[in-house]
């Protein structure tokens, strides 16, 4: 292995060095400072004269005297089933004081694209025990469903609740514990305190044993954040498609990841896209998110829950915007509901699960699920509209029908969405609560629901006066 002492430029996270041999694009580099410290990096651009290296651990301390070694391979992750239960740093090195990791395989972290022809369409309902998700925006195995949140909102509590409660109910009885999820948790630039909350909760519930934790904290080098999710997903792919685990991958916080991308883009003096983020951010994010899914004839699956905090709660910001175009829906964590004390504060109106329709209905959840969910949406949206109106004209100016919708919207928030972070509701519970609320409305207003389902589930005495019999 040839060593170079030819660094001629250091700029932000980038180091430029002259070379006289061919260096592969994306290859891993070690830079040794005169003090003996070794930093790792990756080739971002390779020409026959120089290479541009992105240094993961930050460039402080690097000078022109440093030694540069090219390892001749692209970045790999050591994977083994024994990673379960381990805590690693953002570059994949153990930091829990446990034994050395003996790899069974070394895998390229970039990850090849899954052939769409080999995919299996996700259709297995995951019961998260959260009504706002199960009832309205159902998650299925192999989906990627991000939490769109804001600073100071309880997205972590919600993510933990999902990680704790997620099961695939039908197989529960038949196969016992086999449907439990193994968790890969990748922290990117979150605070130590937030990270501790996750670890403590994993330890308390015993979930740590079936988790792999990657930690890049707020004070760790930002550039490292660009590899952390790739290491995490490579591990998840190995466990899912080699070892047959059902993986739940939590990536938090994607906003920090994107900031790191921008930092590198700026250092390379690239032409920026919107708000200074690189033009290739869509592709880059897709290379992460698209690593969720199922493969035909394979046991395991990867379900992804990325978390991102929207700067200024603005979902047109490039990070949530590009994410929403790639992921299969999104769950909004809402500031108003949070201040009302609703736990979890999920705003269902802008939330969406694109894979919901395949995963619900007769034999999967319950035959009335689709209609009930559509009806709840329509009724809640109408109630929300009326709230705006009430502020202007007052409640007295509304007719009886409108007042019912107002009451419905209120109860929807306080009874259906509100449940607390420790309540685990079955899908039956969720739908039954939904029917109690829907029965506040006259039967002939429920035209999103099949009539036979109305006959079966409508709670007759909930509404004081019901209009003419619908036939």
């Amino acid at each position, binding site marked *: 292995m040839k060593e170079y002492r030819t660094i001629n430029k250091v700029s932000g996270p980038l180091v430029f060095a002259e070379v006289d041999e061919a*260096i592969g*694009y*994306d290859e891993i580099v070690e830079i040794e400072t005169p003090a003996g410290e070794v930093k790792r990096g990756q080739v971002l651009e*390779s020409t026959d004269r120089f290479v541009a290296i992105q240094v993961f651990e930050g460039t402080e301390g690097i000078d022109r005297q440093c030694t540069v070694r090219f390892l001749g391979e692209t970045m790999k992750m050591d994977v083994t089933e024994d990673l379960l239960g381990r805590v690693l740093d953002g570059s994949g090195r153990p930091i829990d004081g446990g034994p050395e990791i003996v790899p069974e395989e070394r895998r390229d972290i970039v990850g090849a694209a*899954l052939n769409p022809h080999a995919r299996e*369409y996700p259709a297995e309902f995951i019961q998260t025990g959260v009504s706002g998700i199960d009832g309205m925006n159902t998650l299925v195995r192999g989906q990627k469903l991000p939490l769109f949140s804001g600073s100071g909102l309880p997205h972590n509590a919600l993510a933990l609740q999902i990680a704790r409660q997620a099961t695939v109910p039908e197989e529960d009885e038949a196969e016992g514990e086999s449907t439990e999820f193994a968790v890969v948790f990748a922290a990117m630039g979150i605070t130590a305190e937030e990270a501790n909350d996750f670890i403590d909760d994993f330890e308390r519930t015993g979930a740590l044993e079936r988790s792999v934790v990657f930690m890049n904290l707020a004070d760790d080098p930002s550039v490292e954040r660009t590899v952390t999710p790739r290491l995490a997903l490579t591990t998840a792919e190995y466990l899912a498609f080699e070892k047959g685990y059902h993986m739940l991958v939590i990536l938090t916080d994607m906003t920090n990841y994107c900031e790191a991308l921008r930092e590198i883009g700026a250092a390379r003096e690239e032409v*920026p896209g919107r708000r200074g983020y690189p*033009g290739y951010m*869509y592709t880059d994010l897709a290379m992460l998110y698209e690593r969720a899914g199922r493969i035909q004839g394979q046991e395991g699956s990867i379900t992804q829950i990325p978390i991102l905090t929207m700067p200024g709660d603005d979902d047109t910001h490039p990070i949530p915007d590009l994410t929403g175009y790639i992921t299969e829906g999104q769950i909004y964590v809402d500031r108003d509901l949070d201040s009302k004390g609703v736990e979890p504060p999920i705003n269902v109106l802008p939330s969406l699960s694109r894979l919901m329709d395949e995963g619900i209905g007769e034999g999967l959840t319950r035959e009335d699920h689709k209609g009930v969910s559509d009806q709840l949406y329509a009724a809640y949206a109408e109630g929300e509209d009326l709230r705006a109106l009430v502020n*202007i004209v007052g409640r007295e100016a509304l007719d009886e029908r409108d007042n019912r919708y107002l009451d419905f919207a209120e109860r929807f928030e306080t009874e259906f969405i509100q449940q607390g972070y420790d309540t685990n509701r079955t899908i039956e519970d969720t739908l039954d609560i939904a029917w109690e609320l829907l029965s506040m409305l006259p039967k002939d207003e429920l035209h999103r629901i099949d009539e036979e389902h109305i006959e079966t589930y409508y709670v007759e005495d909930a509404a004081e006066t019901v209009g003419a019999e619908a036939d």
Partner: protein
Amino acid sequence: MSQATQTEAVREDGTITGVSGPVVTAVGLEARMNDVVYVGDEGLMGEVIEIEGDETTIQVYEETSGVGPGEPVENTGNPLTVDLGPGMLDSIYDGVQRPLDVLETIMGSFLDRGVDAPGIDLEKEWEFTPTVEVGDEVGPGEVVGTVPETESIDHKVMVPPTFDEGIVAEVNDGAYTVDDPVVVLESGEEITMRQEWPVRRARPTADKHSPIVPLVTGQRIQDGLFPIAKGGTAAIPGPFGSGKTVTQQSLAKFADADIVVYIGCGERGNEMTEVIEDFPELPDPQTGNPLMSRTCLIANTSNMPVAARESCVYTGITIAEYYRDMGYDVALMADSTSRWAEAMREISSRLEEMPGEEGYPAYLSARLSQFYERAGLFTLLNGEQGSISVVGAVSPPGGDFSEPVTQNTLRIVKTFWALDSDLAERRHFPAINWDESYSLYKSQLDPWFVENVAEDYPELRQWAVDILDEEGELQEIVQLVGKDALPEDQQLTLEVARFVREAWLQQNALHDVDRYCPPEKTYAILQAIQTYHDEAFAALDAGVPVEDIRDASAPPRLNRIGTTEDYEPFIEKLVDDMTEELRGLY
């Protein structure tokens, strides 16, 4: 092989000097613009996009990790071409026409690099039935025989457009592979079932016309309010979650085109999987055969290499043109053209070109118009007619339609279906906003609707538009003073408009019956709502309070027509009941 390759000598190979993502530079490569080259030891497929002195810039269609300077580059001397011939239907390709099912058998579930596979099966034998005889004179584009490609479609074998007119010297009836000559001309030129064509060049036609026949979509808001013509262009812009893909897929499923080319450009892998799983199961509403037998899929998902995303729309439209040349009506869906534009932007910024608006290259508008101009109703070289309708989805960042891709697209397309996140949030699907959308084909297509659906089709449509417009204005007042403060007639108008929205515009793409609505049914539902309108206002004029009219029990059944299969007797009974009930009030 096409003649071009035989006359050209193999060119000198070059050497890589730099790699940055999908962009590779090389020296010593004597290539022309847009030549296809093989890059590096693994032979990754790429295309020449810039030449400066001895230095050539190449965009590579595959992941370039590990490729380094010094590795070789081989020039094929050919531009990016597609193989055209039987077997393209019922297939799924990536952006450079590699069949994904074949790739799966070669390299497993994940897409590896450096593997090539021909776009059509070169081994398979097809049953060729000639339609010409020895001694016939044939010209370019003329059909010389047919091949049963799928249950629905007879593939027509044509004289390539590059050939001269000639006399048929030999005709071979029977089973042949795509490279065997099936017809030989006196000049010695051999016609096979396979043609190659460079994707960036439109296939020639004789003439282009204004389209006059609608592409019936089976979607009420589209057929009813904003129709598109066979040979027309349409754009579907919308923020994420507003139902672009569902709308595109409904079109691909139910539009009455002969052939559908569906391009998944930079979108989700699972969405393509859904199409692959659904289409073989679903029947074509026109023929009853599986939808897949008229469909060609091109899937270049968002995580597949970006340069191949740039080429996939060209691959798709070239395949569409080939079927058009056979005289078919082809519909092409591109989901999403924004991803295609972003791929252009990404390549452009790696070339350090001077950016135009929002970082997009200055040639964005030119590329978009070139693409959409390949749509149209054509007279073909052989005198027949064929058409390509293009529907492009647009994904504007933040749902803001003022961004460059939406704006440049709107300057070209004549139908605009604007998706609206407000409607999507209240689960009003398809979430096409009736105020913002338009179709410039209406007047061209009205004669067809009058002749084939109903004489007062244009008038009834205008009535619906007027009601919706009036509702829009009234809603603004309602926001200020509440509904009860409105005069009774206006309250009743709101009620009618609600039925127009909920019973007519809304359509459930997942309901077995409602997902496809023939134009006759579209007309009948609206007519029933108009009857309600007339009867309700008659009752109001006779002094019946608006509350009583609103409380009538029959009219809400209007909402169930869409999901009723045998709708004619249902409407008949409903209209009788409504009339009786409302007239009973006075």
